[in-house]
């Protein structure tokens, strides 16, 4: 038996926080199991309220833990219990536990809050659905998985919850599995995620091969990769001369994030995931699934080598620009938001890659609030408009749904990053701005073609307000384009409007001068820096630079300008846009491309699905004629042999036995005639025999 791992004793504050986080993580699971078994029998229509109260309790726990953590000046800590014994490895066990630093706590609060609001929203949205209870079971399980990722104590544990997120998202996206769309969307999401997970496992395998059981040890106070850094002789040394395998391992792990956060090569599942119920979209696109990828990238940050950083940045940049272009042309309101999410995730990934660690994670939080709100608003509209999702049939809905329009408007402003100089009343400005600064810094370091990393985010900063204003104008402003639909629309029920307004409020008050999100994440970064993560150019100067550069003015006002343009263009429907399409050369082609999602689905269909099918056909042919043929030949041969041995057995062996029996019987038949049972015969035979014997004896004597 191996020696147990000894971890530092927790202080009483840490112990309290540990218990709180423990409760916060497990409450959704308890709620999920409870609703699974008792939902339809006992809770029935109260299932929603029950799940909401469990989530709210979870939120209170997380909030209290965060409060304790920030005010009590508590050090990050780790806690683990042995889980599965692994003989022959220095770790001795797989550990199950909890790692807590500022980032964990901040994300816990964010996830539980948003999940609570989504649960409340679902009560209204899912009302009357025949699997009402089941929905809350899945939703709680989904939240639990995400909380598990956030509190995970090591890569292995993270991976377990990572897969749980994949599973539960599959169940949720395919919640209306009677329809063909959700069926395919959930499969697509699942398969795409598996592709990413393969990368994750490869990365993990490389680390395991190079470092052995150390990778399985729970995170210590410095984060998940302390042991790895120590093995390689300190973090500064690693990055001065990074080994090739570390780069590949980093990219491999990042590939998991590509799958979960729907980055460039694997991005196609996210827009399709719109097929799920809207509450699912709102939580998938904000707090849980896609956030997991960014969170993972942030956690593996210490082992990303410069080359891996470049890779991360390129992926982020491609996603960012491409998705923004697609968002401009979509007419389905949820698809606009889906591509907007892709684009914003591109920002985050680019942010982490380029070293704007704080701002990327800060953007994760702010984006979670406003994107969740936007989705809930769109869900309200769709629900009221009899599941019509196409914006071409909307228009002028602000009069009918003023509160929804208000929430949508606030979030549009937030995502656009409106700001004045270096100050704003909206959180989006601070986070997005920071990312652009980070990429500016990175572009500056790289020089040459690296300036793409500067121009990409800036251009998208102009596109984002435009498409958001477009969707706002098409939905809520102007004249109704479908009078029938317009007449039926009314404000959504309280359970749906309430969460929207709360989220819009959080989109505002998440600004650094009200809520301490940014501060908490910054503390995480500081502890990273204290642990020697210094290879990102200008990482710690970035925050200072934030206040000393004129650029924010430009972007902040750009947002305002582009919103104006967007609203002006689309206030009265598509007229102006179509005019532009006709007049400006080349725009039409771009429009068609973007409308067809740059043909990625077609490309995947041709290069992956078709080729796989072709390959499968060849394999099937070989199997049928080659392998099966061989088997059949062997079979026939065996059959022939069997027939031969059977004949031998019947004829020769049995023949011998029967022959012996037959000859014995014939002999008996022949001999029985000498035993007629008459004494006189016996006696005469006796005498005949005697005479013969005598004559024989006489002949012998005579000779």
């Amino acid at each position: 038996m191996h020696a147990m791992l000894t971890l530092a004793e927790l202080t009483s504050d840490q112990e309290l926080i540990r218990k709180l986080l423990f409760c916060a993580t497990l409450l959704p699971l308890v709620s999920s199991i409870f609703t699974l078994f008792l939902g339809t029998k006992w809770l029935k229509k109260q299932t929603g309220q029950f799940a909401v109260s469990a989530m709210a309790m979870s939120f209170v726990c997380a909030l209290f833990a965060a409060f304790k953590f920030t005010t009590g000046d508590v050090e990050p800590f780790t806690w683990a219990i042995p889980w599965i014994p692994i003989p022959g490895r220095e770790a001795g066990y797989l550990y199950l536990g909890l790692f807590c630093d500022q980032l964990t706590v901040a994300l816990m609060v964010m996830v539980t809050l948003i999940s609570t609001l989504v649960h409340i929203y679902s009560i209204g949205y899912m009302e009357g659905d025949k699997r009402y209870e089941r929905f809350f079971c899945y939703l709680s399980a989904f939240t639990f998985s995400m909380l598990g990722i956030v509190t995970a104590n090591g890569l292995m544990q993270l991976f377990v919850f990572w897969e749980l997120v994949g599973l539960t998202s599959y169940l949720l996206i395919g919640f209306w599995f009677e329809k063909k769309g959700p069926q395919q969307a959930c499969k697509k999401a699942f398969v795409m995620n598996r592709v990413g997970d393969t990368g994750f496992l490869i990365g993990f395998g490389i680390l395991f091969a190079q470092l052995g059981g150390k990778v399985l040890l729970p995170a210590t106070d410095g984060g998940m990769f302390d042991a790895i850094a120590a093995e390689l002789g300190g973090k500064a040394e690693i990055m001065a001369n990074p080994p090739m395998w570390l780069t590949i391992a980093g990219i491999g792990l990042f590939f998991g994030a590509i799958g979960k956060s729907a980055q460039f090569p694997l991005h196609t599942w996210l827009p399709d995931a719109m097929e799920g119920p809207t509450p699912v979209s709102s939580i998938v696109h904000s707090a849980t699934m896609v956030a997991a990828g960014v969170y993972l990238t942030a956690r593996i940050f210490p082992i990303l080598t410069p080359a891996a950083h470049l890779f991360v940045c390129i992926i982020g940049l491609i996603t960012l620009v491409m998705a923004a272009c697609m968002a401009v042309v979509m007419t389905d309101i949820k698809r606009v938001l889906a591509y907007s999410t892709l684009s914003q995730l591109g920002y985050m990934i680019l942010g982490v890659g380029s070293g704007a660690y704080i701002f990327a994670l800060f953007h994760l939080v702010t984006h979670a609030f406003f994107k969740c709100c936007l989705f809930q608003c769109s869900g309200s509209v769709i629900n009221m408009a009899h599941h019509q999702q196409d914006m071409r049939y909307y228009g002028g809905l602000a009069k009918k749904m003023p509160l929804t329009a208000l929430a949508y408007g606030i979030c549009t402003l937030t995502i656009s990053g409106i700001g004045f100089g270096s100050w704003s009343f909206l959180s989006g400005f601070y986070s997005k701005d920071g990312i652009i600064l980070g990429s500016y810094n990175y572009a500056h370091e790289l020089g040459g073609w690296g300036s793409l990393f500067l121009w990409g985010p800036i251009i998208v900063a102009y596109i984002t307000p435009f498409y958001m204003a477009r969707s706002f104008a098409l939905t809520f402003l102007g004249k109704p384009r479908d009078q029938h639909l317009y007449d039926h629309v009314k404000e959504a029920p309280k359970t749906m409007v309430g969460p929207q307004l709360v989220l819009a409020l959080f989109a505002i008050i998440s600004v650094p001068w009200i809520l301490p999100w940014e501060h908490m994440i910054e503390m995480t970064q500081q502890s990273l820096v204290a642990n020697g993560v210094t290879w990102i150019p200008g990482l710690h100067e970035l925050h200072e630079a934030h206040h000393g550069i004129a650029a924010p003015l430009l972007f902040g006002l750009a947002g305002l300008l582009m919103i104006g343009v967007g609203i002006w263009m689309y206030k009265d429907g598509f007229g102006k846009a179509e005019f532009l399409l006709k007049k400006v050369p080349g725009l039409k082609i771009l429009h068609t491309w973007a409308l067809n999602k740059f043909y990625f689905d077609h490309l995947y269909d041709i290069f992956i699905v078709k080729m796989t099918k072709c390959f499968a056909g060849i394999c099937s042919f070989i199997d049928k004629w080659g392998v099966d043929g061989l088997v059949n030949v062997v079979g026939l041969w065996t059959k022939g042999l069997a027939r031969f041995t059977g004949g031998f057995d019947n004829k020769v062996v049995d023949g011998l036995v029967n022959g012996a029996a037959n000859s014995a019987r014939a002999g008996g038949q022949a001999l029985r005639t000498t035993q007629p049972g008459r004494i006189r015969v016996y006696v005469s035979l006796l005498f005949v025999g005697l005479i013969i014997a005598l004559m024989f004896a006489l002949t012998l004597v005579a000779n």
Partner: protein
Amino acid sequence: MTMLALFQPGLYHLLAVSIALLTAGVAVILTKRNAVGILMGVELILNAAGLNFVAFNRYVWANAVDGQMFTLFIIVLAAAEAAVALAIFLNFYNNFDTINVDQADELQG
């Protein structure tokens, strides 16, 4: 007396009587169907053998008594045999109501 003295019976005479007895016995056995008759034929054959023993003892080894001893044994044997055989016949008679040996073919192969 003289005639008797002239007629000195020798070994061959005795053997001739013995053959006559044997032949008569065999003939009886072969012809009789009555079990008791057959028993009598057997007695004749046994007596022929006994006579042979006595004759050879007298004319070949005159000082020995082995032949006489054998003859005595044969007489005893014949008595015992007659007892057993008669017991068998009685049982046979009880079961089959006859002592015709042609009827006793139960052990026929």
